[in-house]
Structures are given as structure tokens and as C-alpha cells.
């Protein structure tokens, strides 16, 4: 899964978007420019027609590439599959019901639990780490950590899984050296997977929260200390309330990244830890009962619903935090 790079505050600059309107956008200072102005409105309008055309390929691509799969999910999730006894295509809610029961419900709940836990830990660990780095006196160190975070945050997937197998797997170097297996350690469990996920979630948190930390004014801290506040009181009453929207936004982003992750778990634990993305992969490879071919689509719909809920929380938070960073 690709994790989102640093969110960019979405405050549109109205001046630029309105700039295309005809009128006194550019004052014409010289006579030659003024005479050249005459044929302009017509050409402008022609340009405007072209403007819509230029966006047409993207829109078309989107309809085909995104619209069709979305329709396929929406239709498929609510109809019987083609290998069903009735020949398929009739309306049913059985797929959706089945996708929320038994092993599938366990997997969905497992995914949510894993994502909540790892996102929470990564937030709690990422904040002090980002603070320690952001307030460091060494510019080189700050830049090195930020660039390393950029790499590691995008370093999900198969290589990450193999790295941890080599480190903490059953015959991993650290496992062998410290005899961790004797202490009951196994990488291929819920907690093992959490340790692995943190490897890309913590850097992601550092990238996300650093702009907010840099937005904390030194004056606020000085003012708090001058008024006799302790360090704890400063964080409790000044810094954390300001950071809260960014922190929550970051938490939600991490939840989404962890929830959607597939490759790491697939390459590492197979299906020994129940996760919804694994179940979908299984169901898509035909690993379901006859007549339940559309179950995977219903599971996909479940995932989209959860992800939509997450985004519905994230977007307003991001807008709020953007206010402070201005």
C-alpha cells in the first residue's frame, strides 16, 4: 500500500483561479500591446473551449478506470454471482450479510483493531520523536531524519516484510541472538504484525506532525514560562490543544494507511492473522464457497465504507489544523 505523503493544506488561492476571467487581468502598458488586444476576446473564447477539451481525457479516463469498478462493486455486492444456482444477477443482500458474519467479521474487526492500535502507538511515539527532531540544534540532523522518514513512510510492502522476517522471524538474526522464541515471541502474530506496521507508521506520523510542531511559536512557550507555567503545564494547556486537530488528523491518516495495507501482511503472515484485506485477496483467488463469488465485492464495499468514515473525520480536521499553520 502506498501511504499518503505529507498532506498539503487545501486553501485555494482565489486570486489565481479567478485570473482566467476576461477583463483587466493584465494592464496593457504600451501602445502595441493595446492594438494587439483587438482580436483577443474571440481567441480567448476559443481558448476557453479548448480548456474544457483539455480536461476531457482525464474525465473520460476517470469514468472508465474508476467509475466502472465502482459500479461493478455496487452492482456485484448486491446481486448473486454468476456461479449461483439461479444463474446470477438477481438482487440479494446475502453477500453483504455474509461479509459481516463469521470469519469475515472477525477479519474486519481484526483489521480495525490492528489499525487502531498501531495508529495510536505511532501517534504517541511519533509526537515526541518529531518534537525531539524539530527542536534539534543541528540542521543536518533534522534534514537527515526528515528524508529518512520520507523513505521509510513509503517503504511498506514486500521488502519491509522480508526485512522483519530476517530480523525477528523464526530464524531471524535478533531472534537467534536473544533467543526470543524461548520467551514466546513470534513475528507471525497480531503483536508481531503491529511491530512491523509501526516501522512505516511512525515515520509517516513524523512527516505529518512536523509542520504543526514548527507552527508552535517560541513566544507561546516563553509567555507560558514567564507566567510561571511548568513544562508540563505548557504542554497540557497550550501546545497540545493547538496540536490536537493535527494529531487527530494524523491519527486518522495512519489508521487509513494501516487499514489498507495488504502486501506486508500477505508476504509475511499469510492468513494466520485475520485481516479483511487478506480475506478479500483470498476470496478473489476463488477461495470461497460455490455461488459466493460476489462476496469479495461485498467485502470491498465494507472496506470502502470504513475508509469513507475515516476520510469524513480526516478532511474537516485537516482544514482546522491548516488554520493554525498559516
Amino acid at each position: 500500500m502506498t501511504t499518503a505523503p505529507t498532506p498539503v493544506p487545501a486553501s485555494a488561492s482565489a486570486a489565481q483561479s479567478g485570473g482566467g476571467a476576461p477583463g483587466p487581468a493584465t494592464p496593457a502598458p504600451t501602445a502595441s500591446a493595446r492594438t494587439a488586444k483587438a482580436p483577443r476576446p474571440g481567441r480567448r473564447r476559443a481558448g476557453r473551449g479548448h480548456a474544457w477539451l483539455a480536461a476531457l481525457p482525464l474525465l473520460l479516463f476517470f469514468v472508465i478506470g474508476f467509475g466502472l469498478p465502482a459500479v461493478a462493486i455496487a452492482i456485484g455486492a448486491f446481486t448473486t454471482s454468476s456461479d449461483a444456482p439461479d444463474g446470477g444477477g438477481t438482487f440479494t443482500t446475502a453477500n453483504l450479510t455474509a461479509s459481516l458474519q463469521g470469519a469475515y467479521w472477525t477479519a474486519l474487526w481484526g483489521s480495525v483493531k490492528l489499525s487502531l492500535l498501531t495508529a495510536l502507538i505511532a501517534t504517541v511515539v511519533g509526537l515526541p520523536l518529531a518534537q525531539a527532531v524539530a527542536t534539534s540544534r543541528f540542521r543536518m540532523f533534522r534534514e537527515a531524519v526528515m528524508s529518512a522518514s520520507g523513505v521509510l513512510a513509503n517503504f511498506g510492502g514486500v521488502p519491509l516484510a522480508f526485512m522483519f522476517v530476517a530480523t525477528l522471524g523464526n530464524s531471524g538474526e535478533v531472534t537467534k541472538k536473544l533467543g526470543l522464541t524461548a520467551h514466546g515471541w513470534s513475528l507471525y502474530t497480531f503483536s508481531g504484525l503491529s511491530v512491523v506496521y509501526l516501522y512505516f507508521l511512525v515515520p509517516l506520523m513524523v512527516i505529518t506532525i512536523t509542520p504543526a510542531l514548527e507552527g508552535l511559536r517560541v513566544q507561546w512557550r516563553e509567555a507560558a514560562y514567564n507566567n510561571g507555567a511548568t513544562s508540563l503545564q505548557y504542554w497540557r494547556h497550550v501546545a497540545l490543544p493547538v496540536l490536537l486537530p493535527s494529531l487527530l488528523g494524523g491519527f486518522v491518516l495512519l489508521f487509513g494507511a494501516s487499514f489498507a495495507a495488504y502486501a506486508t501482511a500477505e508476504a509475511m503472515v499469510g492468513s494466520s492473522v485475520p485481516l479483511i484485506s487478506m480475506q478479500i485477496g483470498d476470496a478473489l483467488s476463488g477461495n470461497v464457497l460455490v455461488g459466493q463469488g460476489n462476496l469479495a465485492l461485498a467485502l470491498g464495499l465494507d472496506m470502502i465504507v470504513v475508509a469513507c468514515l475515516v476520510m469524513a473525520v480526516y478532511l474537516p480536521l485537516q482544514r482546522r489544523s491548516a488554520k493554525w499553520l498559516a
Partner: protein
Amino acid sequence: MARLIDRIRFGRGLVLLLCGVYFAVPLAASLYFSVDDNKGGTTFRAYTELLNAPGFTDSLVLSLELAGVTVAVLLLLLVPAMLAARLGAPRLRPVIEVLCSLPLVVPVVALTTGIIGVLRWGPDYLQDTPFFQTIVAIQDPGFPIVLIIAYVLMALPFAYRAIDAGLRGVDVVTLVEAARNCGAGWLRAVLTVVLPNLRSALLNAAVLTVALVLGEFTTASILGFAPFSVWISSNGKSDGQMSVAVSMLSLLIVWLVLLLMSAVGRGRKAARS
């Protein structure tokens, strides 16, 4: 006060140390694992045999081809649309922004289920129509076009943000008007004036996309194609040491690319000021 500062320094040191250990140990252990011959010595077998491993070059070439075509398609679709939204059709802008954010809401696995759903329409309903041939054609294992569609969608949000950030720093409207006042046509104004100003943003978008395509595993593996990431996974199950070696190499490559990118960006900034 001095004690307070000491405590803060101590806390900072502790946090950095713990995190440093957590992030450094897997790297070091993997590196060691990839050269450990299990008899106490070192061997570079995993790295030297890599080139001769069956499927290594094929899958790598396929991945690189996919990455190249994805970048080309993505930029050809996105750049004209975004420029059009800035220059002539401001009402398009929110539409494009929403469209480009939508793929973020759909987890890749879910998108893949949708794609499989569409591909199944082929044998199910479209057997006698030309669409069937199209659906077969885009699944050619030698060059799966369906993966490009999926990758372009996945990369859209990131590429959009990168290019949007670049557009914010450049007053496109003024640039184009200036060029047109000097007698350039629309196409020429865009090609010779606007695009060179967006070079670093385009580069940024391209690099993000390449990194995404090279690392993408979910869609390719579920749809049954074999680009590089899938090869690492299947090969790793038979030869653990080599797979770790490849993992280390891929991390190194991403790191180098990002460093190179920031170096290019810094160089340009320095040249401008």
C-alpha cells in the same frame, strides 16, 4: 531551570536513542542476514546470484516499463486538465480536485475487487461484442494495460498534490498572457513557457509515481501478473537470503532517488536566488 533543561535534554536523548535503535536494528540485521553464510563467515552469494535468478530481469524490465508508461499517461492526462482549470475553466478546478482525491478513499484491495468485477463482465455478458476483445487485450500478461489503469488511478492523488504545489508557486495566467502578448500561440505558450517553470513539480510527481509503481504489490499479485514486487515475494518464499538482499537493494534505490530529487530541487532553488 537548569535542571529542567537537563531533564528535557535527557528526555530528548532517550526518545532519539530508542527510536534510533528501533529503526536501525532491522536494517542492520537484514544486512547481516543477507551476507551471513550460517558458518560464521560472510558471503555475497545472494547478491551475485541475483542477476542470474530466473525471472529477475524479466520482472524488473516489466516493472520499469509499467512505471514509464504510467508516468507518461498520468502526466498527459493530468497536466492539460490542471492547466485548463487554471487558465480557461476555473469551474473545473474543484471537480478535478475532488476526482483526484477520490482514489484515496478506496483502499487498493477494494479497487482491485472492482477491477476484477469489471473484467468478469467480459466472459459473463460481453462474449459476442468487441468489448470482449478489448478486455482480453488489456490483460495481456506481457504488458498488462489494466495495471496501468490501476496505477494511474492510485498515483493520481499524489501527482495532483505535487503538481498543484508547483502551480501555486508559478503565476501561470500571467506567464501565458505574457507569452501570448509576445505572439505565441496557446500550445507554444504552454510548451515553452509554462512547462519549463513546472519542471521540478513534474519531476516530483514522476518520482512519486515511479516509487509507487515499483513497490506496488496488491493489484499485480491479485490479478496474477508478475512485476518485480510480485517476483520478490514469490522468490523470497524459496530463497530467503536473496529476497532480503533484494529488499535491501530496493530500499537503497528509493533512498538514492529521493536524495537525488532533493539535490536537484536544492540546486534549482540555489540557482534561482
